[in-house]
């Protein structure tokens, strides 16, 4: 219902339920406030927003008072001004005059309001109340003396991050904000409280004392570190990033600690090219190194044909780099041997590729998860892996959504795990396939489908509820109740973890997800929001732009025009390249940004193959393990220094704004591509990010600004094709599903009793810090997680050194006990320096088994 009110003489029309503060804001009238924040619950305690409402004797807080028809509000009357002046004086009374040494100066609400509305000089002459200094966490510095008790930080950790790290202690004027006994402010979103805090009570330790905020140039950008691609604002000091903040316009204004603090110093690390001669690294000028790359690629591809060369690339790259790479290799070198999946990629059949393509088209939007009444988290811990996804799941849960999780790790914080089914990845795949088969059967039998899928589904007997309940250790009644839950949800959220995409059963998972979604639609159950977390960084861009060896992979692959794609033959996937290298058939390999030596699942085979490759060239930000055996290393600017665009996991195109670099903002990869193009005498027509972007935009028909700066300033453009509802065709069984037999790989359990589980590097372990980051705020130690019950049985306590051994190798690492881990499992995340996952995983089994022993001190 619309209401007519007057604010400072202005007529305003607002919806019922609007507060005075919201109405004033809509009318362009500024009402000062401290405790109110649009993303948090209303508190009404700072009393800075008091305004006059005609007919009411007492002043009313604008943030909590809802308007009524005919209300007349005055925000600038003498009474209001006096009250504001009084409240501000009382706020500054105990507030230390720290402005000259306080980082918040220049963006401090208290400073601003006192200047605008307060007394020129405070009259308090007594001693100010103080609190003892106390460290509350690694990234946020607390100065309790400056606190104005707005409780925004408390409400954030209770309502948004759901971590409840900080609380209120004491009462009256000795009220203090602090952490609970023995705990610290440490959650994937802790940095947001430094933006929320209206004063300098909670400040950013990384940014501490680096610059004054008015000296910083504010530049809109996007975070490249995970597939969510949050909008960010870079604040540059002399062109270099001093700090990163969130930016309005996206799903929410928050960013995670990964995006906020992970930009690193980016000054260290090898920036000089070298070549390796007889095992020794020799520094050479750029041209020499580049010439060597070009020369060897030309000779080898001439001698042994285009299939003898290949490229592996990282997803921590721009769309332009990925597009450029696959364009040069496909169209200039005529080789389709390109892959970004360096861990376990296997060639996909045409049918499997179609499933992936359909799953991408079915991808929902990150913020749609909030509206779901049930959310199923499949093999992921979103707050640790793609934090903003976790935040939105948390919002759904806080509004009453039912949470169900399947996987070896219970998602954190606790509210997100809800009903947790402990399962290894393979068991989880079985469970999901089984649940989707049940829903598919229901749909097929409902008489509401046009096509007949019944027989095909019935034949997928390996996924029957009874069989799966045996293999996966879940009771049949439990599975049936889950089927009911999935059916009865009116808006179901399905989050598929990134780790799934490392598994050979990824296509089975995706087809199960599509079937689930389609079956729900047929049965009239409601909408399904699918969010596949896909992988790392700009993985969606890699998928959309063809940085992998599919036979058909989107416009842009092949010679340029979409119609040329159909006839492109599939290239070699990662493990095929390793095989070919071992046979001596892959003679030249370009490695862009990634580290196959440290990442490829079968480390032994990988190392053997890579060492055997005649010519191995690495172009990356730092000298990684693969560069350590490469014939040529070419340096690359950091991702924060290269211009270009990225694609978020929900298909939104966003642009990066680079910080100043000695090597310029044009990715040095373009030099490499240009040089390689000249092997055929053609030269690379796509000279830089801007020209590459224009070409991609034309080919794909993206409806977005042509200018990168303009694209960066906005909130991004949704460019990927979307299908609102998967067609009922996806209910039918797929050929590859019939041959899929997860859980039947005949694992020897006697010698290696534990399942090995892994997943993306977790935000809270700090391993994701840029390799050359100068942050030493959190000890960066490798660790593996063991369930508390297993540890007890083995006599292992928190912090003990353990050896984890598989049939392929072993790892020595510190053990951490976890209540959130499925007993019978050992968890080692990716990304650690020494304790690499591929020492344990081998050549191709979907599940690795390990044994565990405590090492003597």
């Amino acid at each position, binding site marked *: 219902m619309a209401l007519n009110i007057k604010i400072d003489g202005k007529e305003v029309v607002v919806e019922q339920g609007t507060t005075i503060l919201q109405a004033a804001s809509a009318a362009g009238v500024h009402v000062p406030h401290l405790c109110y924040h649009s993303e948090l619950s209303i508190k009404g305690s700072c009393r800075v927003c008091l305004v006059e409402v005609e007919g009411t*004797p007492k002043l009313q807080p604008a943030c909590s008072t809802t308007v009524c028809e005919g209300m007349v509000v005055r925000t600038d009357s003498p009474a209001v001004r006096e009250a504001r002046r009084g409240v501000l004086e*009382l706020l500054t009374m105990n507030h230390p005059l720290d402005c000259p040494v306080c980082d918040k100066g220049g963006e401090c609400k208290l400073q601003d309001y006192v200047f605008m509305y307060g007394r020129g000089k405070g009259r308090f002459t007594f001693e100010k109340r103080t609190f003892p200094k106390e460290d509350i966490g690694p990234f946020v510095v607390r100065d309790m003396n400056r606190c104005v008790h707005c409780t925004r930080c408390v409400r954030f950790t209770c309502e948004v991050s759901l971590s409840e790290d900080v609380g209120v202690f004491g*009462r009256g*004027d000795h009220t203090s904000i602090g952490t609970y006994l023995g705990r610290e402010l440490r959650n994937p979103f802790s940095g947001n409280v430094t933006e929320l805090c209206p004063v300098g009570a909670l400040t950013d330790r990384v940014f501490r004392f680096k610059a004054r905020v008015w000296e910083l140039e504010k530049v809109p950008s996007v975070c490249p570190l995970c597939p969510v691609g949050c909008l960010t604002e870079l604040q540059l000091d002399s062109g270099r990033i001093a700090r990163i903040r969130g930016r309005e316009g996206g799903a929410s204004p928050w960013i995670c600690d990964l995006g906020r603090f992970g930009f690193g110093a980016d000054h260290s690390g090898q920036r000089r090219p070298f070549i390796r001669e007889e095992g020794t690294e020799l520094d050479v000028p750029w041209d020499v190194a580049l010439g060597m790359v070009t020369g060897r690629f030309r000779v080898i591809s001439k001698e042994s044909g285009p299939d003898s060369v290949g490229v592996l690339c990282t997803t921590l790259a721009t769309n332009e780099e990925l597009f450029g790479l696959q364009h040069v290799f496909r169209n200039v070198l005529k080789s389709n041997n390109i892959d970004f999946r360096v861990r376990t990629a296997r060639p996909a059949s045409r049918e499997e590729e179609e499933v992936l393509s359909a799953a991408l088209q079915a991808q929902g939007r990150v913020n749609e998860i909030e509206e779901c009444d049930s959310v199923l988290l499949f093999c992921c811990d979103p707050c640790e892996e793609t934090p903003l996804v976790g935040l939105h799941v948390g919002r759904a849960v806080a509004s009453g959504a039912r949470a169900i999780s399947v996987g070896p790790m219970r998602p954190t914080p606790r509210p997100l795990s809800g009903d947790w089914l402990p399962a290894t990845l393979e068991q989880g795949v079985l469970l999901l396939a089984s649940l989707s088969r049940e829903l598919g059967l229901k749909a097929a039998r409902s008489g509401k489908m046009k096509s007949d899928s019944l027989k095909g589904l019935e034949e997928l007997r390996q996924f029957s509820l009874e069989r799966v309940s045996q293999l996966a250790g879940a009771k049949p009644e439990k599975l049936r109740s889950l089927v009911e839950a999935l059916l009865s949800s009116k808006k179901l959220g399905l989050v598929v973890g990134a780790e799934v995409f490392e598994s050979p059963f990824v296509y089975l998972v995706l087809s199960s997800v599509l079937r689930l979604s389609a079956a729900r639609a047929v049965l009239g159950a409601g909408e399904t929001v699918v969010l596949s977390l896909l992988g790392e960084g700009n993985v969606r861009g890699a998928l959309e732009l063809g940085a992998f060896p599919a036979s058909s992979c989107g416009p842009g692959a092949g010679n340029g025009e979409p119609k040329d794609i159909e006839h492109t033959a599939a290239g070699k996937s990662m493990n095929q390249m390793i095989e070919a290298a071992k046979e001596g058939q892959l003679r030249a390999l370009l490695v862009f940004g990634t580290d196959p030596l440290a990442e490829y699942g079968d480390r032994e085979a990988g190392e053997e193959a890579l060492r055997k490759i005649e010519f191995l060239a690495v172009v990356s930000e730092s000298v990684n393990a693969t560069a350590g055996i490469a014939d040529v290393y070419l340096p690359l600017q950091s991702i924060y220094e290269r211009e270009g665009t990225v694609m978020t996991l929900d298909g939104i195109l966003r642009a990066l704004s680079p910080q100043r670099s000695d090597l310029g903002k044009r990715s040095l990869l373009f030099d490499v591509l240009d040089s390689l193009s000249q092997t055929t005498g053609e030269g690379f027509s796509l000279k830089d990010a801007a020209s590459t972007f224009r070409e991609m935009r034309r080919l794909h028909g993206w409806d977005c600004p042509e200018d990168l700066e303009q694209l960066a300033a906005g909130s991004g453009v949704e460019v990927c094709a979307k299908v609102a509802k998967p067609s009922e065709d996806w209910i039918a069984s797929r050929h590859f599903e019939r041959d899929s037999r997860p859980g039947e790989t005949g694992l020897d359990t006697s010698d290696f009793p534990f399942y090995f589980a892994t997943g993306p590097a977790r935000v809270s372990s700090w391993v994701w810090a840029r390799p050359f980051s100068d942050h030493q705020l959190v000890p960066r130690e490798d660790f593996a997680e063991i369930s508390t019950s297993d540890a007890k049985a083995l006599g292992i306590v928190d912090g003990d050194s353990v050896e984890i051994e598989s049939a392929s190798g072993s790892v020595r690492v510190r053990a951490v006990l976890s209540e959130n881990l499925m007993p019978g499992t050992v968890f080692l995340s990716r990304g650690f320096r020494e304790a690499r996952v591929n020492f344990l995983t081998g050549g191709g089994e979907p599940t690795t088994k390990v044994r565990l022993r405590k090492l003597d001190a």
Partner: protein
Amino acid sequence: MEKILLKNIDNPNSESIDAYVSQGGYGTLKKVLGGIKQADITDTVKQSGLRGRGGAGFPTGLKWSFVPKDVPGPRYLCCNADEGEPGTFKDRVIIENDPHLLLEGIAISCYALSVETAYIYIRGEFVLGAERLAVAISEAEARGFLGSNILGSGFNLKIHVHRGAGSYICGEETALLESLEGKRGLPRLKPPFPASVGLYGRPTVINNVETLANIPAIVARGAEWFASIGTKGNTGTKLFAISGHVEKPGVYELPLGVSLRELLYEHAGGIRGGRKLKAVMPGGSSTPVITPEHLDVALDFDSLEAVGSMLGSGAVIVMDETTCMVEVALKLTRFYRHESCGQCTPCREGLGWIEQLLQGLESGTASSGDIELLLDIASSISGNTLCPMGDAAVIPVESTIARFRDEYELHAKQGGCPFARSRARAAQEAP
């Protein structure tokens, strides 16, 4: 005058159910459950003119009528036994000596309001009171006056005693609800009011002990009878807890409208040691101080408001000529500062400033502008806080300055408290 509330307290073992029943106790509950309509009870209470005895004086029947009738689900009744207002010790007398009177009052009220779960929030310091209530409740349950299907009527009522933990602000109704819910005792924003959104978000009525203790008599003997006691608009009796410089401090039940003079000189024996009256806080520390010129004021809600003060809880604090009014303001401000919940800026920060300024006046470090400054700070607090405690907290300093300005000026001019005794104590107590 016929006693209503203190009728039983002088009987031996008055707190026991036998004593209560032998005096006709629970007879009204029986009558009510025997067939009186809920609406009739509420009407009777309304027409009786009973006003809340906790301090606000809000018409009880009207408060009850705010509970929405058509909202399904549980509703609650909370008895506010926090009795935190300085100077008030009257609820305690009922709780310790006639708990069954309170329980019967609660039971009848709950019946009228369709409440099946009631809580008595009692301040933690009332150890004896909590014990006696617990015993009384089990006695009543054993006799079938509480519990399921009371006296075969189909009416169920469970009364829980919940002890507080030393916070004055938990006597404020919404902070009481927060505390009862297990959270920090912080007042809530109003609206919404507890009648629609109260305990656990459900419709809730919160009444003071004395208010509820009046219910059995009102229902038994009718609204007209109750309205015949006291004055127009201020009906019934009041428990006056008189303390301070009087010969006979204590709790006296007298009709509303009795004069201050009568209470002070006829019942409480006059000023101790035959001294002269200087000032009175007629309803607890949150009420503006009045002076001997007001001796003939009627002690009721409306008359006291007319002279610029309040009846409040009826806690009459009497001060004689030996009292330093600045010290009074200081001591009370110290209390409010200590009890401030800390949520909102004016109360949290301002009371400390006021206290330090008053301390300065007492110990001789104040400057002449401090009196105006005190009033200025008080006006920044009054009316600007989240809950009424801010307004209450500045009443001691505001009203003593208003009525005893000269004394304050003397403090400032003479560099400290002219009362030698106060000066010594102030030096000892200086922070």
